[in-house]
């Protein structure tokens, strides 16, 4: 005789008078496959937890974003923000799509070069460019975006020493009406510091000013600040054209466009309140038409989008280790991926969905990672169905900053795979093992013997 289907017994208290004005509780649709590949099969093959990137989604995101800008302004160039995700395979997809490399350290610069990106196709940003990496960038004709005066003077010294010319841009910070104001990077627009830096560059015969750059912040939830920022850079570019008859090669509007991840403390889901990508494209491109140079000489619009292109192309599959009841009766689920892999969960309420069909009953739960640390909490409250030990969950929107900010802490970092457009899965970063970690350590001879 066939037995009846079993699910965990559940009882949920009903509250009246506290109705959610936005309707019924969210329905969590399970995610059983990624790009047609069953997640259970991926876990069987590569283990759990497992980071998965979708090649198809990355390319779709890139092409959609590129089309939005290219249809609004004739000359557009994207550069891939390495710090968002510098996994070689991921960067290669973006480079195949035509993105330059945008790096913010000598280490990232080296990663781009080893991947085969030529210096002239690297944008070198950031406050910490050490002497060796500046020398290399000058020698290899990278696009150096100067962050502060000490760096400007070091570049001047280096070009004299090396007897070399160099193309440079400056990073400009400004008041765009948002808080926090990112005034720690670059030269300020309002107090005239940016124009002062520009004049010093122009009067130096070895330095050639080719661009202006700004990056107004991260996860910017409104399009208008971009309009303000673009207008201010356009004003500067016009000023440079009028005073010095220099037509810039490019205006770099940076990144900061949000993904659909929901911030902690944000009442509504991100997808309900964020402006559309079209709004951002409009805000950034409209002021570009105020450029006063001849239209066949217009500067190229550079963008350094990171998060908005990769976040929803990354998934973290994780297994349920245990279910618990907290002292107040609230359910807690412990899974095998925690804040060690998702540093981003300190400020995002990552969406977590079941990895298999589950019962219709949901319960408010806390989701904890595997670390024996109180901070290891992925979600303090999430309404999810019940799970059995060994069930899978999929954590969404983890493509940005996860695999660059993750920690090797308490446990080792897992495999990372990519689902290719042809439906195959490829390992793109092997899981760590103790030999790899220990190979970096040295124990002084005197400490090698002990008896307990």
């Amino acid at each position: 005789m066939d037995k009846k289907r079993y699910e965990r017994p559940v009882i949920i208290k009903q509250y009246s008078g506290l109705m959610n004005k936005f309707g019924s509780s969210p329905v969590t649709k399970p995610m059983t496959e990624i790009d047609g590949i069953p997640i259970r099969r991926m876990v069987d093959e590569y283990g759990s937890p497992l980071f998965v990137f979708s090649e198809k989604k990355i390319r779709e995101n890139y092409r959609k974003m590129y089309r939005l800008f290219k249809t609004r302004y004739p000359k557009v160039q994207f550069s891939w923000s390495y710090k968002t995700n510098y996994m070689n395979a991921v960067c290669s997809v973006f480079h195949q799509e035509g993105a330059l490399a945008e790096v913010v350290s000598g280490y990232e610069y080296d990663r781009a070069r080893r991947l085969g990106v030529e210096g002239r196709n690297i944008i070198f940003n950031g406050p910490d460019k050490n002497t060796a990496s500046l020398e290399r960038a000058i020698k290899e004709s990278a696009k150096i975006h100067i962050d502060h005066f000490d760096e400007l003077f070091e570049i001047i010294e280096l070009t004299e020493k090396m007897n070399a010319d160099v193309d440079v841009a400056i990073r400009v910070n400004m008041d765009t009406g948002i808080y926090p104001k990112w005034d720690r990077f670059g030269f300020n627009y309002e107090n005239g510091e940016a124009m002062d830096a520009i004049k010093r560059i122009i009067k130096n015969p070895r330095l050639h000013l080719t661009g202006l750059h700004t990056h107004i912040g991260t996860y910017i939830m409104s399009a208008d600040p971009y309009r303000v920022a673009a207008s201010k850079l356009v004003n500067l570019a016009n000023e440079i054209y009028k005073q010095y008859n220099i037509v810039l090669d490019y205006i770099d509007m940076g990144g900061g466009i949000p993904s659909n991840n929901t911030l902690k403390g944000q009442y509504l889901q991100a997808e309900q309140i964020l402006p559309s990508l079209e709004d951002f494209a409009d805000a950034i491109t409209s002021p570009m038409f105020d450029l006063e140079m001849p239209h066949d000489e217009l500067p190229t619009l550079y963008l350094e989008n990171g998060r908005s292109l990769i976040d929803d192309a990354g998934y973290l599959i994780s297994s349920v280790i245990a279910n618990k009841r907290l002292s107040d009766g609230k359910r807690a689920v412990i899974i095998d991926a925690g804040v060690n892999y998702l540093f981003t969960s300190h400020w995002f309420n990552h969406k977590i969905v079941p990895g298999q069909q589950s019962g219709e009953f949901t319960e408010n739960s806390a989701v904890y990672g595997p670390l024996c640390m109180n901070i290891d909490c992925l979600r303090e409250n999430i309404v999810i169905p019940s799970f059995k030990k060994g069930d899978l969950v999929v954590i969404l929107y983890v493509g940005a900053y996860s695999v660059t900010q993750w920690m090797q802490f308490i446990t080792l970092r897992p495999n990372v795979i990519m689902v290719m457009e042809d439906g195959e899965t490829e390992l793109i970063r092997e899981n760590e093992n103790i030999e790899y970690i220990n190979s970096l350590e040295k124990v002084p001879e005197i400490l090698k013997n002990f008896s307990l």
Partner: protein
Amino acid sequence: MSNYIVSSNLAISDSGFLFYPATGESFTLNQIGIFILNKLREGKDENAVIQSLVDEYDVDKNTAERDFTDFIYQLKQNNLVQES
């Protein structure tokens, strides 16, 4: 093995709606939840309830026992049962 006393006057519908007149509170249960609560109301002890779960549903004894323990905990939290 524990016996449980279910609070009196509980009204449970077939679809899983539970009303507790003593406090005015209402709850929803899934089918397994109704099954267990009804067995307890019939006076079955823990062993008997777990055995009937294994007999009727596609579940092994360990899982049934673990889930039963968790469910009883929730019932106790809501003052719907007490240990005899």
